[in-house]
């Protein structure tokens, strides 16, 4: 170590240190322009001059180059130094009078104007770029050339260089902004397009794929990294505080032994580049829908500001073109199932962003809003938001003029040519199999179907051609989020049935020390304030916060950590707790939403109850959002810590109650869904009680005789009933209903009422009448419920139904075809007319019954098969043969079945004249009203919920939607759960759907239910509500407001109670209680008021 004196202060520094580095350690600021700590000093700008004396001699020296020597005396602010620096900056200012950085520095040094003649150069020859390129990037693309006043930095021969990496580091480090990387590089320098933003935005080489990525970790792009490709740069490694960068990480191949495989590898989007009629790739203002979706996103490239990427102008008129790469015999004949809804959503969101005046037109063939709640959304888009839907054929995109406007030419319904101008055209590109699917299928030994999606097995959409390998999501057929989530749970359920015997065999349980009893102790709070590298400490004065915190009452210990979350800091917290007998811990760092569980675990390891932790964010809520207000941010951080300390003083240890689980299930409904769910639970090893209201199992499946792909539903029915009835684990209660229901997840008690000779209708449409007299009561105990109560075909009075035996529903038609009674209906059959959407998609039933279009196509094809001479007309509003069902719609058209589109305001008219049935309908293509004589009228009456749903909903305390179907916890993400834990949903009582979809949902419900059975006890959250009985008046308000049925009144004491296992800790009852008798652990009123007080 060497001793020296700087500005009369003594300092010891390592040998080899320069004066500039030494002054830096003392916090003395010295101006520089050519110095960078990670590059070799060069001494070019001469601004870092200091006065160095040794003995009697004193000299002016460049501090960046001058190595420390023993007994050196340095002065950085003498008059001589300041005067010399002023001269230097004046010279620089004369050379580059327009450089902001130099002007700023000149002002700092007290120089306003240079006395020297102005040169109007911009380079100060500091050489930072040259050193950066040579030393860090290992490229040496640029160098000094010539001498004296001609000296400059250029690539060889002043020509762009082929060896330039295009990394832009020279431009980045240039203090005056004179260096332009593009002048050095022979290739065009482009930012890397962000894959997540579909190339609309850009991304760095070191990148977190997207904000919600799991794991949320930055990854270095191997292809572009200069270190990995040339062994240079390493800048990321230097700036990374926790030293997380490891260039030696290599791709590894690991072998894992598994019993089952689930394939959920997703899909790709159709690339419209080859489709010249849409102009994608040719006109910059033609985008694909995923690109547009990113533009709309608040976390997207324009932060949700709706602009065209080409010129950043706000579009006034946007067109969406549907079925790009879908329903197209030239590429993908199938329907992508999701485009109608996402285009509708994007149009609505665009209007929300840009205002009502934005024009959004959707060019479509059929709007396929077949999912639950979709038709309502579609109607709202039209009426509330003013999204226009234009039914048309063959839209084409052309350039309208030079300003980037586009022209869409199309053919209208009445065969006229039309055109419209737009600022932006969005192509609703379809879903295609992932590009690597063939390789994946080969590795896994799976078959692909003719569209190159993974082939599935008949009615069982998660089963592949290979046992033990299951599939979920769009990799087997395009599908929406709810169906994907359902299949995910179903595939997991199937895998867990296959591996039932091995369940839990790889589970390891973590053990913790015995908890220290602290509730009687005075609070001794330990506060740990995190620097988070420079994330917090770069803005907030962390030592200042620590100093302040130590003055707060109840604080026994406070320290700051570089990274409080790092492994060693965690160990340190553990030690400090023991050392200082800390009994409450405050962590001031990032957000509790991500890191609270980690620190709860840490203090648990030190023997503290995990709820003795208070967590306050001084990063997300402070340093990151107040980066330019250091003082105010520090003040705020102090207050936030004070708030946390005030609340922490009142924290109490909490216990998480656990409850035993009865590992038996109750399934309500013995149709396809109920039988499947029962079999699934039984296969997974659990006992099941199956309650069916009719005297036979099967439900609506009994009325299905054909399916589009040739599978026989009756065979399925027979096999399923046999399997269920012969399974020892399944206890069947036919002719039965739920009489009483009580309990909570893991512990339900249900009374089943069984009738002896209950009259049932054999058609299974749910019209069974309650029997006279009393039934037998049985009480069963079970841990979960799967609700699979079914639905029925609508009873209609429209179109003369019931007045003539030649007018039937699709269900009746199918039954007659199956029993060879087709001809007997209409005598000699020559013309059949089918009317779609009878009662569906109208006021009072504003939903699509989903199956009718495919059923009409199926039954028409069947009639054509029996008698190709029959004329069939299908009167429809939109044909919704989604997914691979589209193929059969094509077949129907090829077979000459005539499809006539009608609108809700011009419904077909059915009349009977002299025993002749006629239908009158307006044909928009012929542009005239048709009158068709017919022998058989078939009504697609759709599906309606069962009447008893209402009473079931009351008994089980689960909600119904406005159409009378059961309402799941989340329509997209939790499609088989109710918000009440332990009750699940499957089949038609959820919403109309096909047999295969019902089977998937039943497996999903059983799979979800089994997650409760994988544990012996259920753990409630610790932050539940409790009642201070002394204050409770038994007013029942808490019972009414609780969304989870977790509150009840104890009849004996007339005080409110909590069913702890049901309480989710929302605290709504706490705020509702007029007496303050309800309190939430961890969020007690006293604690919150204390917190508020501490802030003010």
């Amino acid at each position, binding site marked *: 170590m060497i001793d020296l004196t700087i500005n009369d202060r003594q300092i010891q520094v390592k040998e080899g240190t320069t004066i500039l580095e030494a002054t830096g350690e003392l916090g003395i600021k010295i101006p520089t322009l050519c110095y960078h700590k990670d590059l070799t000093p060069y001494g070019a700008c001469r601004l870092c001059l200091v006065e160095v004396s040794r003995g009697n001699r004193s000299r002016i020296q460049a501090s960046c180059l001058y190595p420390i020597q023993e007994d050196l005396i340095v002065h950085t602010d003498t008059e001589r130094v300041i005067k010399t620096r002023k001269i230097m900056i004046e010279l620089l200012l004369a050379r580059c009078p327009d450089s902001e950085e130099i002007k700023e520095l000149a002002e700092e040094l007290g120089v306003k104007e240079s006395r020297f003649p102005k040169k109007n150069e911009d380079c100060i020859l500091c050489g930072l770029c040259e050193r950066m390129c040579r030393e860090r990037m290992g490229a040496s693309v640029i160098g000094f050339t010539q001498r004296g006043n001609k000296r400059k930095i250029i690539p060889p021969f002043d020509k762009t260089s082929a060896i330039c990496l295009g990394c832009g580091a020279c431009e980045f480090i240039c203090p005056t902004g004179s260096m332009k990387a593009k002048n050095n590089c022979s290739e065009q320098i482009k930012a890397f397009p962000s894959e997540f933003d579909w190339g609309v935005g850009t991304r760095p080489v070191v990148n977190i794929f997207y*904000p919600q990525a799991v794991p949320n970790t930055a990854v270095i792009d191997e292809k572009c990294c200069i270190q990995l490709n040339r062994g240079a740069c390493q800048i990321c490694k230097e700036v990374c505080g926790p030293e997380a960068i490891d260039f030696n990480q290599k791709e590894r191949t690991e072998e894992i032994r598994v019993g089952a495989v689930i394939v959920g590898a997703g899909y790709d989007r159709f690339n419209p580049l080859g489709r010249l009629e849409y102009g994608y790739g040719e006109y910059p203002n033609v985008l694909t829908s995923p690109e547009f979706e990113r533009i709309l996103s*608040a*976390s997207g490239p324009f*932060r*949700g500001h709706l602009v065209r990427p080409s010129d950043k102008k706000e579009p006034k008129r946007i067109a969406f073109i549907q079925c790009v790469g879908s329903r197209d015999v030239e590429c993908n004949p199938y329907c992508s199932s999701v485009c109608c809804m996402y285009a509708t959503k994007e149009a609505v969101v665009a209007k929300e962003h840009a205002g009502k005046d934005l024009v959004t037109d959707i060019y479509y063939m059929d709007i396929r809003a077949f999912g639950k709640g979709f038709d309502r959304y579609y109607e709202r888009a039209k009426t509330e938001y003013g999204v226009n839907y234009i039914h048309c054929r063959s839209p084409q995109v052309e350039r309208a003029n030079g300003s980037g406007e586009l022209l869409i030419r199309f053919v209208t319904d009445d065969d006229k040519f039309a055109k419209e101008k737009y600022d932006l055209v969005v192509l609703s590109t379809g879903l295609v199999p992932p590009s690597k699917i063939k390789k994946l299928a080969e590795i896994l030994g799976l078959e692909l179907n003719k569209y190159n999606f993974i082939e599935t097995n008949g009615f069982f959409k998660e089963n592949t051609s290979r046992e033990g390998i299951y599939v979920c999501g769009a990799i087997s057929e395009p599908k929406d989020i709810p169906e994907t989530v359902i299949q995910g749970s179903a595939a997991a359920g199937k895998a867990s049935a296959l591996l039932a015997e091995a369940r839990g065999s790889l589970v390891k349980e973590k053990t913790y020390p015995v908890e220290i009893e602290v509730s009687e102790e005075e609070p001794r709070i330990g506060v740990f304030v995190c620097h988070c590298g420079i994330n917090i400490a770069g803005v907030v004065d962390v030592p200042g916060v620590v100093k302040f915190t130590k003055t707060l009452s109840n604080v026994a210990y406070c320290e700051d950590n570089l990274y409080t979350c790092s492994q060693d800091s965690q160990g340190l917290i553990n030690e400090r707790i023991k050392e200082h007998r800390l009994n409450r811990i405050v962590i001031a760092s990032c*957000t*509790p*939403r991500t890191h609270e569980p980690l620190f709860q675990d840490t203090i648990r390891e030190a023997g503290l109850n995990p709820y003795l932790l208070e967590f306050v*964010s001084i*990063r*997300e*809520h*402070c340093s*990151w*959002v*107040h*980066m*330019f*207000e250091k003082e*105010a*941010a520090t*003040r*705020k951080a102090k*207050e*936030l810590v004070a*708030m946390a300390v005030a609340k922490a003083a009142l924290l109490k240890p909490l216990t998480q109650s656990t409850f035993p689980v009865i590992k038996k299930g109750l399934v309500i409904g013995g149709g396809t869904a109920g039988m499947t769910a029962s079999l699934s639970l039984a296969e997974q090893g659990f006992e099941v009680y199956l309650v069916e209201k009719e005297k036979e199992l099967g439900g609506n499946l009994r009325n299905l005789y054909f399916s589009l792909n040739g599978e026989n539903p009756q065979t399925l029915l027979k096999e399923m009933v046999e399997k269920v009835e012969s399974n020892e684990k399944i206890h069947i209660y036919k002719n039965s209903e739920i009489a009483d229901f009580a309990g909570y997840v893991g512990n339900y008690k249900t009374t089943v009422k069984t009738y002896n000779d209950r009259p049932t209708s054999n058609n299974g449409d749910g019209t069974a009448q309650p029997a006279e007299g009393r039934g037998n009561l049985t009480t069963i105990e079970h841990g979960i419920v799967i609700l699979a109560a079914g639905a029925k075909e609508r009873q209609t009075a429209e179109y003369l139904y019931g007045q003539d035996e030649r007018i039937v529903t699709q269900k009746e038609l199918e039954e007659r075809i199956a029993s060879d009674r087709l001809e007997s209906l209409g005598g000699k059959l020559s013309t059949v007319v089918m009317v779609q959407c009878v009662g569906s998609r109208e006021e009072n039933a504003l939903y699509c019954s989903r199956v009718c279009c495919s059923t009409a196509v199926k039954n028409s094809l069947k009639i054509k098969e029996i008698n190709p001479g029959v004329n069939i007309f299908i009167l429809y509003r939109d044909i919704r043969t989604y997914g691979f069902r589209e193929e059969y719609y094509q077949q129907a058209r090829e077979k000459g079945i005539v499809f006539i589109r009608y609108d809700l305001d011009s419904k077909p008219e059915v009349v009977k004249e002299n025993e002749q049935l006629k239908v009158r309908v307006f044909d928009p293509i012929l542009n005239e009203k048709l009158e068709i004589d017919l022998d058989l009228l078939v009504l697609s009456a759709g599906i309606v919920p069962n009447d008893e749903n209402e009473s079931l909903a009351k008994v089980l305390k689960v909600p119904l939607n406005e159409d009378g179907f059961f309402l799941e916890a989340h329509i997209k993400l939790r499609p088989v759960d109710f*918000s009440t834990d332990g009750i699940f949903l499957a089949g038609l009582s959820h919403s109309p759907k096909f047999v295969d979809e019902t089977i998937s949902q039943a497996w999903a419900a059983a799979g979800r239910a089994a997650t409760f059975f994988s544990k012996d006890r259920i753990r409630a959250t610790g*932050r539940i509500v409790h009642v201070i009985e002394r204050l409770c008046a038994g007013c029942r308000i808490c019972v009414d*407001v609780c*969304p*989870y049925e977790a509150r009840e009144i104890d009849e004996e004491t007339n005080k409110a109670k909590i069913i702890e296992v049901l309480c*989710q*800790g*929302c*605290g*709504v009852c*706490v*705020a*509702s209680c007029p007496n303050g008798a309800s309190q*939430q652990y961890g*969020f007690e*009123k006293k604690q*919150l*008021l204390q*917190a*508020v*007080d501490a*802030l*003010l």
Partner: protein
Amino acid sequence: MAEFEPKIIAFLCNWCSYAGADLAGTSRIQYPTNVRVVRLMCSGALDPLYVYRALIEGADGVLIGGCHPGDCHYTNGNYKARRRVAVLKKILQEFGLEDRVWLRWISASEGQRFAETVREMVENVRSKGPNPLLRL
């Protein structure tokens, strides 16, 4: 005299607005330092008492952040918050404080919206001047 800097207490739902405030942080969206966040599990758990206490103790404004209608993590707590705040504002009218209490729906993905709301509220409260209860 330095410009008046209002002090705003924000009660945010853990699942939406608190997460939205987190997102504003991770996105480095800058907003005024005047706001202090208190985390609640649900906007429906907001006891009006907390708002009164904040105002009595001298807060110049109170921001309540909940999930958008229909998005409540706990089914319908935000609707309860909406009703409760409506009543609360009626009472605050008596003191001329009703415009100092804002209820806003801010989802977990709306960092920008959170920052804008804070900016807007700080400006609004600044123009109103300090909490009149402080003069008492």
